[in-house]
């Protein structure tokens, strides 16, 4: 079985500062990985590097995505090959409706796969169906993308987009932050519904409660740019109880 994603000794940073200091991670089809870790440990940086954000310079290591060198690809080609990032802070795009944005996005992906653009009626029907997964109201379709959306609505919109784009690998960066209890359940339900044996998900989160709904196969702790511990879902429970200090201590002892 070829992994969907294989990161080996990845180092990356900005200008004179290294943020990722040697990350290795293998994600196989059908798996859900959770990445936890204190603020500033490099979780979002890792997500951004995977998505191809140019401001981060890759200084070492390799990333293989579906058998290809991911780091060679432009951000849009990564997306077209099935990489999806649910942003920690989704941007607002005034004047571009959610529907129009998604139509452009979906059709770009289809074009890449040599498929015709979806007919407007088919597309609309698909949007309506997928919105139900995250219980989003149709009225959002005609609103400018994320403009004036509440924090929770933006997060739901990310998962709605994920449902539309059907990625091979979805990286969810703190999608649970800012969600109320009901929304958390709904969003998690959406993510679960999209799980398939051939796709995978990386969930970045601070809270183990999300992992009550989306059961991870592996939990990793990222600390100071390194994965310092990996384990089953009980690791998340332990972190919830004990915090990160003990892990920091352990990591320091090893180093």
């Amino acid at each position: 079985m070829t992994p969907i994603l294989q990161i080996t000794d990845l180092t990356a940073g900005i200008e004179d500062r290294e943020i990722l200091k040697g990350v290795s991670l293998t994600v196989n089809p059908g798996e859900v990985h959770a990445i936890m870790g204190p603020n500033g440990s490099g979780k979002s940086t890792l997500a951004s590097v995977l998505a191809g954000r140019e401001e981060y310079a890759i200084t070492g290591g390799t990333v293989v995505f579906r058998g290809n060198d991911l780091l060679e690809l432009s951000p849009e080609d990564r997306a077209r090959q099935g990489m999806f990032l649910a942003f920690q802070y989704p941007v607002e795009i005034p004047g571009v409706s959610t529907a129009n944005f998604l139509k452009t996005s979906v059709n770009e992906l289809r074009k890449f796969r040599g498929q015709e653009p979806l007919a407007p009626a088919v597309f609309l029907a698909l949007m309506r169906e997928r919105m139900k997964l995250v219980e989003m109201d149709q009225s959002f379709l005609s609103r400018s993308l994320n403009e004036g959306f509440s924090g929770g609505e933006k997060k739901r919109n990310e998962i709605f987009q994920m449902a539309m784009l059907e990625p091979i690998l979805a990286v969810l960066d703190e999608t649970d932050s800012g969600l109320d209890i009901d929304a958390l359940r709904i969003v998690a339900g959406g993510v679960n519904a999209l799980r398939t044996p051939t796709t995978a998900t990386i969930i970045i989160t601070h809270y183990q409660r999300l992992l009550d709904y989306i059961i991870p196969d592996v939990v990793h702790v990222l600390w100071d740019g390194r994965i310092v511990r990996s384990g089953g879902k009980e690791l998340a429970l332990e972190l919830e109880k004990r915090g990160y200090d003990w892990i920091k201590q352990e990591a320091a002892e090893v180093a």
Partner: protein
Amino acid sequence: MAQDSAILDEVVQNDYKYGFTTDIEQDLLPKGLSEDVVRFISEKKQEPEWMLAWRLKAYQQWLKMKEPAWPNVTYPKIDFQEIIYWASPKKKESLNSLDEVDPELLATFAKLGIPLEEQKFLTGVAVDVVLDSVSIKTTFQDKLAELGIIFCPMSEAIREHPELVKQYIGSVVPTNDNFYSALNSAVFSDGSFVYIPKGVRCPIELSTYFRINARNTGQFERTLIVADEGSYVSYLEGCTAPQRDENQLHAAVVELVAHTDAEIKYSTVQNWYPGDKEGKGGIFNFVTKRGICQGDRSKISWTQVETGSAITWKYPSVILKGDHSIGEFYSVAVTNHLQQADTGTKMMHIGKNTRSRIVSKGISAGNSQNSYRGLVKVLKVAEGARNFSQCDSLLIGDACGAHTFPYLEVANKTATVEHEATTSKIGEDILFYCNQRGIDTESAVALIVNGYAREVLNQLPMEFAVEAQKLLAISLEGSVG
């Protein structure tokens, strides 16, 4: 929605799409301007004596005038003796059907994506094509004539409807209004004339495609539209031009007259050659456009999408003379590379309870400079006048500039004048977000810009809106990354 994706699919080429020259034999006058040149033009057009006298008077006024220096643009000094003031395609017989049109010309329009035949038979748009100086083809004349509508080349109107032309030409933009209007009045080559009789609603969009074709030929179009009491007309003007090295001067004059209860909607999509990335070549577009709401409850609405030209200097304006009359100005002006645009409007409130609305969307990219210059003037007698202005600027990149120069002169205390302005930027975050959704940067810019300009594009008739969207995208290609 289906159209949108078709548009985005088209956003792929990188060079100026419409840069080519058609080989049609030209009949040129030597370079330079003199009284003889004015006489020559008038004679070529078989004009009556009064028209020649009017031109000569304008020429004399022009000699005494100076080029305006106040616009926020810079360009090398124009040598008016280096310009050719007359050129016309060799085949000049009047044509009755498209079969008689030079096949080269038809091919040109096909390249431009303006299939005349299709327009004629499918869309119901009557097209008055101006290739350089002579109007070659006017369609739908017969159908319009049944309603008493006159839509013909200006030169024909001067011969066939002298009483109307005499009454209105220069009545909104006097010959000596400015340097370029005087020049235009002296040497105007052709243009369109429209008259809509009382109570008639023009059933189709009247459309003119202008195209500069002869090398070194200044274009001096003159358009006059008169809407009599209770009538309505929507007029479309579109421009593209072939790529070339020398700067070309364009100084058009457009005059609109709306009588009581009449409405004129004038839409422009301007895509003249903007020059290359180093700022070489490109059209100088110095245009005077003005309408008068002569009668009560009349309405004039300007909509413009300006993407081309090296330099644009243009302020479509409305004189709100009739009580309860309405003036509107909707504009999208795009500048990229080294383009410069100084554009806006003037709303002159004279009548009681007159209303005006200004929506200006500037988009600057590259090293370009984009200025909005607008005047809202409320005269003392203009009881209850109201204006709303919205001026937005969108910046793409760090090297361009956006400027707004709103002028307010309000002499009546009952007037309400509102001005809103915003400046936004297509930043890295937004572009990256789009990239992450599989949308490349060029398409992302097109998507965002079309969204930003929607309020203005919505004012355009459907088929024109589609064309305008394409132009926005094409003109911003290569602006990021």
